[in-house]
C-alpha cells in the first residue's frame, strides 16, 4: 500500500444540489417513462393479436422500471449528486452504482456555461458546465437553484479570469 501518503479516500463534496431537483427529475422521468409505457401498451393491447407471455413480461418490466425511475431514482440521484467549489478547484461526485468523482483546478478552467431548460425553469433550476482544455475534463453540476447557479457562474468567471494563459 502507499505508505508515503496514508490517504485512503476523498471526502464527499460539501454541497448538495437544490432539493427541488427531486421534483424536476420526477417530472422528466414521468414524461419519458409515460411515453414509453404508453407506446408499449398501445402495441400490446392494439397491435399484437395474441398476448404472448414474453410480450406481457416486457410490458410488466417496463411498468416496474417506470415506477422505479419515477419514485426511487430521483431520490437516489439527489442523495449522491454533490458538488463543491473552492478558491482553487471544482469538485463533483455523481453516480450510485458506478461512482464518478471529478476534480478540476480552476486555473485550468476555460469556459463556464449555465443552461436552463423549459422544465428546469418551472422548477427554478439551472445546470452549470465547466470545461477545461481536455474533452474528457468537462464537469457538470445539474440542477442547482437558479440564483445559486448564477452566483457560482459569476464567482467562477471572476476567479478564472484572474488566471491568464491558455490553461493547457
Amino acid at each position, binding site marked *: *500500500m502507499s505508505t508515503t501518503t496514508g*490517504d*485512503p479516500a476523498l471526502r464527499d463534496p460539501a454541497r448538495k444540489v437544490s432539493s427541488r431537483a427531486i421534483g424536476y427529475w420526477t417530472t422528466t422521468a414521468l414524461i419519458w417513462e409515460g411515453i414509453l409505457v404508453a407506446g408499449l401498451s398501445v402495441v400490446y393491447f392494439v397491435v399484437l393479436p395474441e398476448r404472448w407471455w414474453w410480450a406481457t413480461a416486457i410490458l410488466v418490466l417496463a411498468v416496474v422500471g417506470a415506477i422505479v425511475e419515477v419514485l426511487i431514482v430521483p431520490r437516489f440521484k439527489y442523495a449522491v449528486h454533490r458538488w*463543491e467549489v473552492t478558491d482553487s478547484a471544482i469538485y463533483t461526485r455523481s453516480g450510485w*452504482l458506478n461512482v464518478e*468523482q471529478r476534480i478540476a483546478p480552476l486555473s485550468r478552467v476555460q469556459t463556464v456555461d449555465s443552461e436552463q431548460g423549459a422544465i428546469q425553469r418551472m422548477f427554478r433550476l439551472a445546470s452549470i458546465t465547466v470545461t477545461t*482544455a481536455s474533452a*474528457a*475534463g468537462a464537469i457538470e453540476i445539474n440542477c442547482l437553484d437558479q440564483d445559486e447557479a448564477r452566483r457560482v457562474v459569476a464567482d467562477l468567471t471572476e476567479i478564472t479570469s484572474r488566471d491568464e494563459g491558455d490553461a*493547457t
Partner: protein
Amino acid sequence: MSLPGDPRPEGPAHDPPEGPADDAPTPQGPAHDAPTPQGPADDARTPQGPAYDLPAPAGPAAAPPPEGPAYDLPAPQVVRDREWHRQSPKMLVIHPFRVLWSMAVPIVIAFIGINQSDGTWSVRLLPVLVIGALALGLIPWFTTHYRFTETQLQVRKGLINKSETTAPLDRVRSVDLESPPLHRVLGLARAKIGTGVDESRVELDGLAQDDAAQLREYLLLRGAGGRAGTVTGAAGQSPGSMPGAPGLPAGPGGEQPAGEQPAGEQPAGGRFDPGQPGSAGLAQEEVLAEIDWSWLRFAPFSLSSLVIVATALGVLFQFGDDFGILSQDRVEGTYEWLLAQAILALVLGGLLVLLVGWLLVSTANYVLQWWNLRLVREPGGTIRLTRGLLTTTSTTVEEARIRGVQLTEPLLLRAVGGGELTSLATGVGSGGTTKLLPPCPRRVAESVGHSVLGTGERLLDPTGDTPHDPGTGGDDRLDGPLTVSVRSHGPAAHRRLLVQSLWPTLFLTAGVAGLTWWLSWDWWIVAAVAVGAGLVNLGLAQLAYRNLGHQLTSEHIVSRSGALQRQRVVLERAGVIGWVVRQSFFQRRRGLADLLATTAAGPEVVTVSDIPLPWALALARQVNPTVVDQFRSAGEEP
C-alpha cells in the same frame, strides 16, 4: 537580407500576451527545456563557434544569450514589404494538374461513353474538357492572395465565396512544410501555419522552397518570442534539470548560459550578421535522431501498411476467380489427384507470394515515409521532424507544447524488441499526436523519447518533495520515465482482470450451446469452445495484468497498459488539467478505481485503470497537492 532600417516587428512580440501558463504547484517538466533549445548536446555546438565569432569584433555589445541571434532574424522579404502576394507562378502548372487528377475519372468515363455513341464527337469534346479543367485550375492562383501586416498573416481566397483568414503572428505555434513530388520538381513548398488550440490551420501554398524555409524559421521564432516571457519564467527555477544547460561551454563569443535571461530583455539590436540568418538557425540545432537503415528490419513487423497488402491480395483473388482454377467441377475424373496437388501448390505459392509481397510493401512503405528522417531540437524551443522520399514533410512542434510521449509496442514488434514513439502535444491537430520515429529498436525510442522530454537519464529524486514509489526506489534512480519500472496494480486488479475475461468466454459458450441444441451438434464442441476460448481469454488477461502499471517520476506520470499491444504513456505532471476517479460497482467491491488524468495534449486523457483507490488518490495528491488535499477525508492526516 536585412537593411539597417529594417522594420523589426519583434517589439510587440516580446510582450508576453499570456501570463503563466499554469499555476500548478509542481515543477513544470519539459517547460524547463523550452527556452534552452541547446539541450544536452554540448558537442553539437562546438564546431559552430565561429558563427558567433563573426560579429564579436565588430560589435562589442555585451554578450547576449544564445537565443539572441534567433530573435534577431531579419524578416523575410515577403513579410517586410507588407504587400499582397500571389502564389508562385509555378503553381499555374500544379493547379491544373490537380484539377485534371481529381477529374480524371469523369473525363475518362465521358470520353468512353461518347466514343461508343459517336466517334467524331469525342475528338472535339476531349480538348474542351481538358481545357476547361485547366482553366478551372487557374482560378485559385488568381484568387488567392496573402500578405503579412505588422501583426498578422492574412490570406484571401475564393472567386465567388470570398474568404479571408488571419493568423496573429505572435501566436504562431506550428509551421509545417510539405512538398509533394510535383512541388519538389518545381522547387515549391506548402506551409501550414497553426496558431492555437484545436484551430484549423492557415495554408500557404506555392511558396518557393527557400522562402518557405526562411518563413518557417521566422514565424516560429516570432511566435516563440511572443510567449518567451511565459516559458522562460518557469525555466529559471530548475537549475540542473538539464545536464547540459547550466554548464554550456560558452563559445569564444562568451555567451551566457541558456535560459537564464528572459528573452524579452534581450537587446533587439542586430548583433548577428544579418547576411546568414539561415546558418544562425542551423548553428544551434541539436540532432535528436536520424534514420538508421538497420531499423529497416523492423518494417515487416509493423502492421501499419497491412491495408495496402490486403487490397493487393483482394485484387489477386479476383484474378484467381477469372482463371477459374479453383472452380469445383475441375476437381474430378482422372485429373483429380493431379489438380489437388496443383491446388496445394497454388495455395503454398500464394502464401509465399503474400509473404514476399508483404516484405516488399512494408519495406518500401518504410523507405518512402521515413527517408532522410531527421528529428532536431531547434533554437527557439521547437522540435522539428523532416522526412519523406517522394513527398517531403517538415513538422514542427513547439517544445513547450509537448506534454508527453507514448511508446507503443504492438505484439509483433515487441517480439523483436522494437517500438514506436509518438509525441503528445497540445494544439497540433490530428489528435494531438505526432509520430516521432518509425518502428525502431526500443532502446532508441526510449532514449530519443527522453531527449524530447528533456529528462533523459535523469536522477529521480527520492528525497525531494515528490517521493516516488518505495517499491521501485533505489535501484531505478537512473531511469527516465520511459524506462522506469512500473508499479503493478496488485492482486485485486489481477483477480478483476481474470474474472472479467470470463465474460466473453461465457457468452461465446452460451451461444455455441444454443446452436448445438438447435442444430443437434455433438456436445463436445461446446466443451472444446469453452476450454479453448477460456484459455485464450485468460491468457490475454494475464498479459494485460503483466503490462498494467503506473509510476510517478519527478516530472512525469507513467501509465502502461494493453494486452497484445503494449503502450506506455508518459505525461508531464504540469500537463494534467484535472482528475476523474471512476469506480464501477465491481471495482468498488475490490477497492479499485480508474484514474483519469485529463490533459489538453494528445488523446486528452491518460487512464490508469484498475489501480487500488488509495494509490489513485496518492498519485493525484502528489501531482496536485494543493488542489487534491482540500478534498481529503477529515482526520486522515498521516
